[in-house]
């Protein structure tokens, strides 16, 4: 079920009514959350519900076993089993085709016959997100940083909480589980904040990202029409993916806020970053933190000397790239950011001598990130090559003027609001505006969403991850 669909609005209206009726019973509320979340997920394909339920039940049991006093060897075994099961499911559904195709391509180059078979595997929506969420729970218990959940119902509600089920923010157990175990208070301020987040998120998705989608297709999904079109396309995609993904995260947080829950912030004005480290502290924060806590630190982080630190950093981002999708372009994107972060780290350690002024640091960081998006968006290495070659051709297609105007008009509201948020250093700055200004802005957002509602119905980009 897509947030930007009429069926979701009907679903959520019915859910709100039932939620109100369940206000006197914590158990009833959690049953409702689990049932609604399964309906929300099963709406796409009910057959994949079993994966979600299996993964949830398995990790709940693993958590209970890890919570009992046991020998370290046993604990490692339980953790290993949980990792094996979760990563096998993820690997099979997400990476089977990629590895088989890559092997076939390798064997073909060696002129060795290799039969790939005909197994076509559908990627279950959100599997990367709920698998990481579930894994973090088991690892935290293993590290004695989290008590195991005592109720399967609450744990299932945590794993399948529908506002953030399919595209995050990836919640840690210590953030969401306690909220599922206590009485929540819904205040007027929370309703106001939730409303703003939902409206702004919907606007970013429906009015900005979805309107940029055809521009991006024009640049990427046809024979490249020259360097200027590729650059404009990269810019369009930078704002499309931001509007799409941060829009989803804002809607998720806003819906949860209206229900009395608090979800972690996932984006904090990332395109204002002055260096790559800052960018990754502001972009997809829940994934960056996950990779840092469970991958980078597990590999030794910066504790094993400078050389190893750079290797760990690079490897973390390489795997982070692969997490996004089973394609070499994502691996390249991860490598691009891993290398960039390595250079940033090296540079910053010598900052006393080479500090960059903001007017150099900001465009350099933005250009680096936007270049990375070209790697991310390319459908294949061949297409990437074609885009690279197109950069050498500076001819301008007939539609380029319209392209630039359309891009500028579509992105302008996003830039305007974000400059405001940046000046106040607060993503919720519009809530602090005078009532008339806040009302006028929200009125415009409502009309903007309504104007473009279900016009294109582009699925959220991160659903495919």
């Amino acid at each position, binding site marked *: 079920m897509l947030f930007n669909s009429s069926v979701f609005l009907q679903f959520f209206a019915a859910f709100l009514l039932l939620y109100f009726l369940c206000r006197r*019973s914590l158990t*009833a509320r959690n049953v409702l959350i689990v049932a609604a979340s399964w309906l929300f997920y099963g709406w796409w394909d009910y057959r994949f519900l079993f994966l979600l339920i299996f993964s949830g039940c398995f990790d709940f049991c693993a958590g209970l076993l890890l919570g009992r006093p046991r020998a370290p060897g046993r604990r490692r075994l339980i953790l290993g089993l949980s990792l094996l099961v979760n990563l096998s499911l993820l690997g099979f559904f997400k990476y089977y085709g990629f590895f088989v195709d890559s092997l076939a391509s390798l064997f073909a180059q060696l002129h060795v016959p290799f039969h790939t078979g005909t197994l076509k595997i559908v990627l279950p929506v959100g599997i990367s997100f709920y698998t990481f969420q579930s894994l973090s729970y088991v690892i935290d218990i293993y590290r004695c940083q989290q008590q195991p959940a005592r109720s399967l119902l609450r744990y299932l509600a945590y794993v399948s909480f529908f506002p953030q089920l399919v595209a995050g923010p990836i919640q840690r157990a210590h953030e969401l589980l306690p909220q599922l175990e206590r009485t929540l*208070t819904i205040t007027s301020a929370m309703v106001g904040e939730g409303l703003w987040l939902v409206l702004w998120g919907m606007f970013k998705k429906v009015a900005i990202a979805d309107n940029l989608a055809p521009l991006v297709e*024009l640049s990427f999904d*046809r024979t490249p029409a020259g360097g200027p079109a590729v650059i404009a396309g990269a810019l369009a995609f930078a704002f499309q993916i931001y509007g799409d993904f941060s829009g989803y995260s804002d809607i998720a947080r806003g819906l949860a806020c209206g229900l009395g829950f608090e979800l972690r912030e996932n984006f904090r004005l990332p395109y204002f970053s002055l260096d790559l480290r800052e960018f990754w502290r502001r972009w997809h924060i829940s994934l960056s933190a996950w990779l840092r806590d469970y991958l980078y630190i597990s590999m030794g982080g910066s504790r094993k000397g400078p050389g190893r630190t750079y290797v760990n950093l690079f490897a973390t981002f390489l795997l982070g790239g692969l997490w996004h999708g089973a394609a070499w372009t994502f691996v390249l994107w991860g490598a691009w950011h891993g290398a960039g972060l390595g250079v940033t780290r090296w540079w910053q350690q010598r900052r006393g001598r080479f500090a960059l002024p903001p007017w150099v640091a900001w465009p350099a960081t933005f250009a680096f990130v936007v270049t990375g998006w070209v790697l991310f968006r390319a459908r294949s290495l061949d297409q990437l090559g074609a885009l690279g070659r197109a950069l050498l051709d500076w001819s301008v297609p007939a539609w380029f003027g*319209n392209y630039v105007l359309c891009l500028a*008009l579509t992105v302008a509201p996003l830039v305007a609001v974000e400059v405001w948020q940046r000046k106040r250093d607060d993503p919720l700055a519009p809530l602090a505006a005078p009532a008339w200004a806040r009302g*006028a802005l929200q009125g415009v957002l409502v009309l903007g969403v*309504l*104007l473009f509602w279900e016009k294109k119905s582009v699925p959220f980009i991160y659903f495919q991850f």
Partner: protein
Amino acid sequence: MKSHEYQLSDVALRQWAGGILVPVVVLAVLLRAGALMGLLPAPRPALDVERTVLTHQAAIAQAPNPADVLFIGDSSCLMDLRARLLEASYGGKHRSQNLGTFMYLGMEGYATLLRNYAASNPGRVKTVVILVHPQMLRGAQPSAEYLGFLSDFYSKADHPLDTSIKGQVSAVLGLHIFEGRVLGRLPVPLAGEFGRYYGFNRNLWDHLDQQRGSAIDPHSYKPAPGEGTADYRLALSLEPGCRDLAAAIPPGARLAIGLAPVPRSFAPPGYPARWQRLLAGWAEWMRPDALLTTLPAVMADDRFASPTHLNEKGAIEYTDQLLRALELRP
């Protein structure tokens, strides 16, 4: 244990709801007032391929745009002939204009376009060529939506978005006014192959301007089993529309009618003879001065963009054949 409790202040909630509703209502009123007082530009809802073509052809028909040879018909007329090429072939002596649109506009819609054109360009047209795909003669009825669109355009009214609940809410809030008068004048990327070929609504508009109303279908035709055959016949339900269209021919203008070709692989055995009979049958209602019987009934598959449209190469060849069939003096 309680699940949750609400600590909602009525005043705060009223402020929130009012804060959103009041600006929405104010903006809706401003949009309507702007449209009523003529502060907003006239509607030009060129928001996708179909609406860009319809709006363009309707606007051309409404303006002084003198042409000696006027083409009118469905999307085959729009895509299968190159009006500018035809004009150039006559050394510019027979100015041509293509007002081809879509099958769903129907003969009644073509008649509306033609009447508007004749009123805006009195006494100029010497030849009117009506060209449609044989599929249209099966009895395709005009779509009320398309006819409404055309009639709203000519009466400068704002055409509603659609009849869904969302469309009705949008209409109440005046969003169709914004869409038709503001958004339609801004660059809107076109979808699919048309987007890849033309880019934006404005580029398609410019192309139609430059090509005297003709467009190119950018698709590639690949014959597929089970897509049907050219089993066309003349539907009696078309007669009133055809007579209405025939009556709209400006006095003194010569009327020629023709049928578009189909891909060779699509045509059953004996199709050219059936095509001729179809044309002759249609002519009984249209009473033309000339029947374009020498036009090809079938053409090679590689000249097609779809079962009903020629591609650019096919259109150039077809225009050449049309040139000879029309027998205009250079």
